[in-house]
């Protein structure tokens, strides 16, 4: 359903999610939580970004880093994740614009929230229930409000039209308005969402994403609002947001801290400048040198492999953080038999892949597509011992499969960087030794159109994913459920065209589960099925490396997806 999310995978740094940060590596990352005590108000913080953000419209943002940055500064939510570093606390939503974390009835099919008193927009007007309702409606205009999550389309209790899409088409037309009005209702300050099916972890979903943020109907310019920021948080935009240059956030005089908690937003700097446009190389170099212009700066650009040796030497200005993202290989199940897929997995040299990608400061071996911190994770039997690859064993499996050797194999990957080329060639080397004859197929513009083409001339591809909220249901189901992915013209996120009734049944079981334990158990079974079928081959968990300026008290939390957490950071 969400092919809008695809663009997020490529850099393996994207979809929103919440996880723990096992501080690892340099042994100097204990800086994180001590920053609370050092926090000082005031000063100007610079946030360096190499490439433009695609959107600042709350309902179109879908990049983990941007979701967190906007939550902490300008877009408050009904419920949000606190800035705690303890995983348990960090993964528990707390009330933000709502008075509590919501009440559900009808087995999780109905959710009610009440909007707090005294919460206002930056122009001083109260945030009303209608603003929330209008916000929810925007996702349905999926020809205008593109890019954002669209879970609401499949959950809200709105009848479907002949094509299976909801009859309601968003606030810009009046089609299906009556149906939407029934699904989302306002009663004074209380908003009620009615769903078709149970959504037990709904508060997790809306804390992790901005899909239910309020929006002012009178200010909505549709597509024209893509780079507007109309704040209800501690900061507001000064002037205009320039897509290619960024913008400056200053304090919002209408923000009342008493309606908020410093557990969510400390709002330390007086000013936050988003500086877009320096190359990643330049950002790395400036921060490593601690040049005057970046001493009060943090960045959303990770340390590049070539700079890591220098970065590690910076001691307290350097952090190594485990990210919520897992990279994996997807064999095309339409073209590769089970034995061939098994041989492929056996011959996959994860170690060479990791070294070619920058080494152990950048990656940690994974044994499942589900990140270990997400409920529903378990080590998958088939992938426990992936390492340098075993060419001999793989060759035996191939020979046993009775296929002609060498077995021709086309590896399609996003060839936008030299690192990707090196990593791909690293896999090729061991695959070639195992009886495969690998053709590398680096694509840039044609990458997604190719891997999403069900009839593509490609045998293996590469992808990355992070959970949308802390549940394996947002990992394996969107990636491997053939019913929501496979169409005659596109496989959407199921790049391997994988189709298994056994797996689909387990997804249904998980979705219907009454308790989280039952759900988790079904999801673990589902992942085991994927392992048995070699539907994917997990590669690694990305680690984030950060360097920040010397005048910054740095902090990163699970809620900020391993990126800098603007709710905590202060300028010395």
């Amino acid at each position, binding site marked *: 359903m969400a092919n809008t999310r695809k663009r997020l995978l490529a850099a393996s740094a994207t979809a929103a999610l919440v996880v723990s940060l096992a501080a690892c590596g340099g042994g100097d990352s204990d800086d994180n939580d001590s920053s609370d005590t050092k926090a000082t108000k005031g000063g100007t913080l610079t946030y360096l970004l190499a490439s433009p953000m695609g959107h600042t419209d709350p309902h179109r943002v879908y990049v983990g880093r941007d979701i967190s940055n906007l939550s902490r500064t300008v877009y408050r939510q009904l419920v949000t994740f606190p800035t705690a570093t303890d995983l348990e606390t960090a993964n528990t939503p707390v009330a933000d614009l709502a008075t509590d974390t919501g009440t559900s009835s009808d087995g999780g099919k109905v959710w009610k929230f009440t909007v707090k008193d005294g919460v206002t927009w930056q122009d001083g007007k109260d945030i009303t229930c209608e603003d929330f309702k209008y916000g929810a409606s925007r996702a349905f205009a999926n020809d205008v409000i593109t890019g954002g999550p669209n879970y609401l389309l499949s959950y809200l209790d709105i009848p479907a039209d002949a094509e299976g899409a909801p009859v309601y088409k968003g606030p810009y037309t009046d089609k299906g308005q009556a149906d939407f009005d029934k699904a989302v209702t306002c009663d004074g300050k209380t908003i009620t969402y009615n769903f078709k099916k149970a959504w037990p972890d709904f508060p997790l979903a809306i804390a992790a994403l901005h899909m239910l943020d309020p929006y002012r109907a009178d200010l909505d310019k549709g597509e024209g609002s893509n780079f507007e920021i109309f704040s209800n948080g501690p900061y507001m935009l000064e002037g205009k947001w320039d897509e290619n240059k960024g913008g400056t956030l200053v304090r919002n005089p209408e923000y009342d801290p008493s309606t908020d908690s410093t557990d969510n937003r400390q709002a330390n700097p007086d000013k936050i400048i988003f500086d877009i446009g320096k190359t990643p190389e330049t950002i790395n170099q400036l921060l490593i040198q601690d040049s005057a212009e970046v001493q009060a700066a943090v960045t959303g650009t990770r340390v590049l492999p*070539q700079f890591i*040796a220098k970065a590690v030497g910076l001691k307290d200005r350097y952090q190594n953080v485990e990210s919520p993202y897992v990279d994996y290989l997807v064999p095309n199940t339409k073209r590769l038999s089970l034995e061939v897929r098994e041989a492929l997995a056996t011959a996959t040299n994860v170690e060479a892949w990791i*070294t*070619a990608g920058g*080494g152990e400061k950048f990656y940690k071996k994974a044994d499942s597509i589900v990140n270990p911190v997400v409920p529903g994770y378990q080590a998958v039997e088939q992938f426990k011992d992936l390492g340098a690859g075993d060419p001999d064993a793989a060759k035996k499996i191939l020979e046993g499969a009775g296929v002609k050797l060498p077995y021709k194999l086309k590896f399609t990957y996003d060839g936008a960087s*030299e690192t990707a*080329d090196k990593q791909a060639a*690293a896999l090729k080397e061991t695959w070639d030794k195992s009886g495969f004859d690998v053709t*590398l197929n680096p694509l840039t513009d*044609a990458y997604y159109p190719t891997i999403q083409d069900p009839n593509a001339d490609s045998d293996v591809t590469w992808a990355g994913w992070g959970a949308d909220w802390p549940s394996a249901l947002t990992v394996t189901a969107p990636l491997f459920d053939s019913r929501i992915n496979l169409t005659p013209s596109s496989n959407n996120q199921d790049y391997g065209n994988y189709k298994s009734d056994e797996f689909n049944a387990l997804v249904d079981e998980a979705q219907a589960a009454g308790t989280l334990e039952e759900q988790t158990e079904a999801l673990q079974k589902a992942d085991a099925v994927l392992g048995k079928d070699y539907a994917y081959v997990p590669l690694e968990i990305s680690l984030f490396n950060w360097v920040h300026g010397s005048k910054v008290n740095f902090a990163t939390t699970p809620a900020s997806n391993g990126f800098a957490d603007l709710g905590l950071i202060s300028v010395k």
Partner: protein
Amino acid sequence: MTTTVSNLESEGLPDPTGHPDEMDRGKVEGKSPTRLAIERFRKDRLSMVSFIIVALYILGGILAPFLVKFGLLDPTSYHQDLLNEFTLPEGPLGGISWKHPLGVEPGTGRDVMSRVWLGTTLSLTIALIASLLAMAIGTVLGIIAGFTGGLTDGVIGRLIDLTLSFPSTLMLLALSAPMYALLTKNFHVPEGDLAWATYVVVFLAIFGWPPIARLIRGQVLSIREREFVHAATLFGASRFRMYFKEILPNLWAPLLVSFTLLLPAYISAEAALSYLGVSIKPPTPTLGNVLRDSLNYAEFDFVYFFSPAFAIALIVVCFNLLGDGLRDALDPKSNR
């Protein structure tokens, strides 16, 4: 004389013959005895040095595939054991050793010398075929335009103007996706290296022939009036025969000079296209894509950073000097 260098930015493609206004000045003096030219050339020390280096490059270029075959060069094997924990080469100067005289590539441990060497072969090959193609198109159209004159001449002239108006580097960048698809899907060129090489060669030539055509047209205009052509006409030689049998042999000198100046420009152009990601892709090395990777290590591995760039610069300079030398030798009136 005049400019032999070209620029790669935007308008990019080379004009190896110098400024068009200058064309008539570059006239080759009829049948200047070849031997005289050779003697003059041999006296020019700089040109001789350039000639030797160019010859070495070509020899090395031819040898490289065989060296790879016999395992003496190995541009693809990974030696990650030669890297430190940060995946940079272990040891000083990018991990220089007897086995790896230019060190190894960060991240992979592939041998840098092998990659630069084989890269030279591929870049030279692409530049060579592209310049031959451009020369062929330019020569044929130039002869036709010069000899027939009139309407045909006018049409070819406009075609030259039109082609020159295109921002060629930009076109090569922008056309890569649709034309790569055209080559692989409609012309069934195998995807990957071959298709990219074909794309680069064909489109470098398509945007690169006009200066050659202009030069040749000018030459033909002056040759056309000479006795042997008149004689051939009197003897009833066919047009085709006249174009190619009688006139072409008299054009070898300017063609040779243009060729030695076009080729280095195409080496640079291929490198620029590799930088923009629209030429042969790694792991197959070309000078351009090796350099593109090495740029990332500018600060950390100077040997790696400098090697491919120097390999490009040296061959480009030597070809240019060789071209100058040849022109001087063939046209003693020029000012050097």
